């Protein structure tokens, strides 16, 4: 894993981290390959260990559907938290622009582990709230910036 503790595992003891990562499967995503597609069932959560993941959404550009970058996740960051949030479907597509290693954590195993270790479940839930909250605030600000420009354009 990266030198710094992954954002999802912050404030966990080393034993707790080991307990969670025990369910993980290390996956190497070749450069240019897809990790998941928009609308796929979200069965696993991913921790980026090395490389980079591009999160994209489809956009019509000159009559063609193109995947437009929404966010990039790098080492230590979390991808695919839809695995823990109903309806458990990915709302973005994820691809690796370069060879990337991720640790995949299956939802069902995590839930069972959290049930047996509620303290770990609580800490990870708090960390997940930080990840989700940050994205919400970020996109809220981006949306307002775009709205401001739209209003200025139409009221000029």
């Amino acid at each position, binding site marked *: 894993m990266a030198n710094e503790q992954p954002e999802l595992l912050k404030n966990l003891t080393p034993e707790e981290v080991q307990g969670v990562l025990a369910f993980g499967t290390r996956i190497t995503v070749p450069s240019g390959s897809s990790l998941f597609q928009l609308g796929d069932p979200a069965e696993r959560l991913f921790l980026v260990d090395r490389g980079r993941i591009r999160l994209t959404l489809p956009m019509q550009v000159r009559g063609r559907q193109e995947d*437009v970058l929404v966010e990039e996740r790098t080492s230590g960051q979390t991808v695919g938290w839809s695995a823990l949030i109903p309806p458990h479907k990915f709302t973005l597509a994820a691809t690796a622009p370069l060879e990337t290693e991720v640790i995949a954590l299956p939802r069902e195993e995590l839930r069972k582990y959290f049930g047996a270790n509620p303290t770990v479940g609580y800490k990870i839930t708090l960390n997940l709230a930080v990840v989700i909250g940050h994205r919400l605030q970020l*996109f809220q*600000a981006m949306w307002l910036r775009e709205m401001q420009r739209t209003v200025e354009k139409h009221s000029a």
Partner: protein
Amino acid sequence: MEMFLMALCMSMLGVAVAAIAFGAATRPASSSSSPVQPELRPVKAVAPGRFFTGQIMPPVAPRPHVPTEVLLTQIENHVRLEQAAAESFLESPSHAQLHTKTTSAFVN
């Protein structure tokens, strides 16, 4: 005899006055001292109509063609810049930080 001549002169004078008056009355009004017809001024361009002109839209100047790859790169660059600006706002929220202008081609 003198009376006859006087009556004759008066009659001729009356005929002459009537002829001059008739000529003046029947002369065309447009005739002037110059025999040359005045030069016609060119008609000014017709003023634009006030109604029904909105139906014909002026042709839109075509934008310079940007290759799709370049456009996609511009979109990506725009997203990165917007995210960076939004991150700056989240670090120190203020009205000025929220609406800082980036160097994105889409907003300049």
